[in-house]
């Protein structure tokens, strides 16, 4: 595991860990069989993400990606948050090992699911999500 210092920082002291009471949107992605599940919670006011939390079962990269991704979306509009890619998450972490890029994909997908959950609750059409990334790489 050749992780950047940034990854280790977010892994050892992750931001935004925990469950959220009555979230405005929740997204859960991954598959326990593959060793990864990520759940993202959003608090939304006026189309702006005022708070985000996560719960993750997974490797160091998955936990660090959850922490970074939730940091990145806080304070963003839903439109801005939707556009945050897994690459952006990985870059913010100063890179991930190639075999671990799929863990950052979980973060992107988790955010998309959570936003769509919010939209559905609001009676809006869900936005089109990317097909699920392949399990186990």
């Amino acid at each position: 595991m050749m992780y950047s210092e940034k990854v280790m920082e977010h892994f050892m002291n992750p931001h935004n860990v925990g469950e959220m009471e009555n979230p405005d949107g929740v997204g859960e992605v991954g598959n326990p069989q593959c060793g990864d599940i990520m759940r993202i919670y959003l608090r939304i006011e006026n189309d702006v993400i005022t708070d985000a939390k996560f719960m993750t079962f997974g490797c160091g990269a998955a936990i660090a990606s959850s922490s970074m991704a939730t940091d990145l979306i806080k304070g963003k509009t839903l439109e801005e948050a939707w556009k945050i890619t897994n690459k952006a998450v990985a870059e913010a972490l100063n890179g991930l090992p190639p075999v671990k890029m799929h863990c950052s994909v979980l973060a992107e997908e988790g955010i998309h699911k959570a936003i769509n959950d919010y939209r559905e609750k609001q009676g809006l059409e869900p936005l089109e999500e990317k097909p699920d990334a392949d399990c186990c790489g």
Partner: protein
Amino acid sequence: MKNNMDSTSKTVYLDHAATTFTDTEVLEKMLPYFTEKFANPSSPYNIAHVSRDAIDRARKQVADAINAEINEIYFTSGGTESDNWAIKGVAFANRKKSNHIITSAIEHHAVLHTCQWLEKQGFEVTYLPVDKFGQVRIEDVKKAIREDTILISVMLANNEIGTIQPISEIGRIAREKGIYFHTDAVQGIGQIPLDVEGLNVDLLSLSSHKFYGPKGVGALYIKKGTRIDSYSHGGAQEKKKRAGTENVPGIVGLGAAIEQATSQLEEHATHMKNLRTRLLEGLLQIPATHLAGHPEKRLPNNANVIFEYIEGESILLMLNSFSIAASTGSACTSASLEPSHVLIACGFPHEIAHGSLRLTLGKENTEEDVDYLLQTLEPIIKRLRAMSPMTPKELRE
């Protein structure tokens, strides 16, 4: 979470199944063979006798350690080469006769991938299942044997879960049927007594760096009369079966290490078992934790436990930040992103196999090391479970 790692802190090494350090006494014995006593053993002058004698002595040390004859020991570059040679060598040398091989589902990749490669060469391979403790069932061996079976290869003790196989019984069956029997004893040397006669084996692999010898050298026991191809072609070394200038210092180190390991076997095993008892008592107090492997028939230095709801790589990373070195069967640390084939073969579901932690003790470990591990690990498990969406409420804080 603060960790106590700084540049001066010593690592608590709990991964002796991966590799061991070379014992300083062993290294001491190797040193002259790099410098003054460096001659090529095949050369025709006095100083070459010194190298030749050193190899002979090491061959005797290995033979004595496993109750073999001197001329049944061949030196190789490690456990992987020994396994590859044993299996490919016997398979091709006996091919005309037949083409079926039996092995187990929990072998080391050096055996499994070799067998899979042989399948591509037209051999047929049966992979025996194991019970939940990781043991091969004698009944399954009997059932798998065919008219055209040439070789059975079952490991002495597993590298992940430490389970010891009923080698002697399998060997008896193989011998009755006239089938060659190979065992990968790489993890067994220095841990449990070994006797090729008692085990009824025709071939046995070992690797120096698993018992405080140097890396890059191993041996293959080949019972007299076994039909086996040469592994490499070239000079007349190793009775023309394994060409190449001998790694004299490495071979000296292997010999010294196996002699030391064998002479200290009981004492070492007692030390390991005492530490492991303390270790497992602590580990199994953590809720939702399971022992992998056999409760008794296991290597004295091996503990393998599974923590539900969390993932092994995260555990290792956190342990690493506290200067503890360990191993896991989680998919997330393997290049293939597949969880341990051993844990899966024992029947653990994928999501459970992910939470495994292998701790393998060594001769320099102390009770303090065990206590440090336990005291470091408990909060780590709690912390990771607190983050995991799979953890049931009552296990979260």
